[in-house]
């Protein structure tokens, strides 16, 4: 900066009077006679402003029809907390066991579940959600449901452009949530249930 900028140390208490770790912020409230003329400072400022014309544009032309083009559509990286989806087990059934832990963890109270005993041909668990609804308009996208899920059944995708015509369309039911995962190609859970179908955990192999 200019010489006037550095003169700021001359005002107020000298650096020696200040306790250690405390610093006088540089700056000088007095204007020099050149600065009082105003025009040289205007020229200096405008000179800098005009340089910005030739810089790369920071904003992007948002176009959600062209989602693969980073110049048109911002795609968040993995780990972004966007729209939810429900995962599936290997048989293609919903992975959820209707334990209600996501509903309990939700600070916005937007998850509604009704549990039911599984059909007889599902042999890997006892319960599944007959109804699983997330009110996307109440949801605050904090990710606590994903954090609370003990079976890796619910997760948040990176979809963030959440638009609908009606309020009802933003209450996602079980099938809609499963379809979201299918459309994104990430719906199969990586974690399997215990192979013998008994609820609970298998003995852990890792020593810890």
């Amino acid at each position, binding site marked *: *900066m*200019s010489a*006037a*900028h550095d003169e*700021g140390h001359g*005002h*107020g*208490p000298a650096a020696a009077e*200040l*306790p250690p*770790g*405390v*610093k*006088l*912020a*540089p*700056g000088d*409230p007095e*204007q020099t006679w050149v*600065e*009082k003329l*105003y025009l040289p*400072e205007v020229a*200096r*400022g405008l000179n*800098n*402003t005009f340089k*910005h014309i030739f810089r790369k544009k*920071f904003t992007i032309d948002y176009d959600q029809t062209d989602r693969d083009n980073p110049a048109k559509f911002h795609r*968040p*990286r993995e*780990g*972004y*907390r966007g729209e939810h989806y429900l995962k599936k087990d290997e048989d293609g059934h919903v992975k959820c066991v209707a334990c209600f*832990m996501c509903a*309990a*963890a939700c*600070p*916005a109270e937007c998850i509604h579940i009704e549990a039911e005993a599984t059909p007889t041909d599902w042999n890997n668990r006892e319960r599944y959600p007959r109804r699983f609804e997330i009110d996307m308009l109440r949801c*605050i*996208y*904090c*990710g*606590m449901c994903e*954090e*609370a899920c*003990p*079976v*890796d059944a619910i997760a*948040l995708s990176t979809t963030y452009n959440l638009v609908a015509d009606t309020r009802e369309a933003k209450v996602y039911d079980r099938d809609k949530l499963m379809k979201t995962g299918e459309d994104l190609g990430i719906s199969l859970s990586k*974690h399997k249930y215990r192979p013998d179908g008994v609820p*609970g*955990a*298998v003995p*852990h192999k890792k020593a810890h």
Partner: protein
Amino acid sequence: MATTESVDIRKVAPNAAKAVGSTIQMNLGPQHPATHGTLRFKLEVSGETIVKCDPEIGFLHTGFEKLGEYRNYNQFVVITDRANYLSPLNNNIGFAIACEDLFGITVPPRGQYLRVIMAELSRLADHVVSVGLQAMDLGAFSAMLWTFIEREKLYDIFEAVTGARLTTSWTRVGGIFRDVPADFETLVRGFLAKFPALLDEIELMLSRNKIFMDRTVGVSALTKEQAVSYGVTGPVLRATGVPYDVRRAKPYLCYSDLKFDVPIRNEGDVYARYLVRMEEMRQSVRIVEQALDKLPDGPVNSVDHKVTLPPKEMVYWDMESLIHHFKIVMPGHGIKPPQNEIYSSTEAPNGELGFYIVSDGTGLPYRIRIRPPSFYNLATFPLQTQNGLLSDAVASLSSLNIIAGELDR
């Protein structure tokens, strides 16, 4: 238009004639662009001079403190995001520290360093926008646009780390909800390399600008005694010459291991607050660089799984971890602090952000009281604007960086 030699104002404008010599009531806000949120000032003006100013808050009342009584300690983090929406990470971290004081647990070194880095980046985002808006309120529009570009770059980092740009909800009691991505250091260092150039540019545009200086130097000055007696903290206090910074006065996290200066000015006016904020940003860059150099490896969360969730991989396969997981999440079980009450404060960008938590030993807090810095800073606003010009009130308000969200709670 031709002017006559003498105009009888009683004939030309009978209503205006009544106002001569008396004051008129005027509203600034609640929807004035310079009020930074919905905030109303009842002004009594005589001509352009403010005779009396009466701030009225409550237009953005959201009941955060009452909501705190119905959310458990982990769930309340999402509410702290929304209290100060200009620096949500500082609020997250401040609340997490208060909870950890209550529970009597410590966070491992890596978790502490990460919190310091994110808190300082959030301080940069807050100060840079605050300075930009201060310039915008005084008519300098370009500087505001450039500062918003820097904030977007910071939000890109927050998005990569926390999964959200604004409503970060990053901390949990005893740590953070996930470790940072592998390229975290590259992201932050890439940002830090270019950021000081913006500060130089803002200084070039504003620091010696005659219009900016005429509008700020000597405007709305507070004395040291006034600031201290009103409980003012943060850059507004430091601009009056009191070197009080919670990071220095009562070090939390790993601030005692890091070298930084507390910038002060002695004038106490709007220009001094601007200078203090600019220097604080340079100090924050220094802190983040040191913290990145020293960033240790290891766990980010407390290993006490009575309070923090066990790793997800363990929950899927290990019965004991699943039990811990269940006990923490489900209401009625939950994490239970001892019956106690604590006050804990951290240095948020606007000043001392305090949380006073009363616990009755159940999973839900009995009472969470937030001490927002904006509330105490705004209390001095009538004092600052008394007998000043109306246009100076706008300059003064933007230099206080009032956030209506935390003001009303």
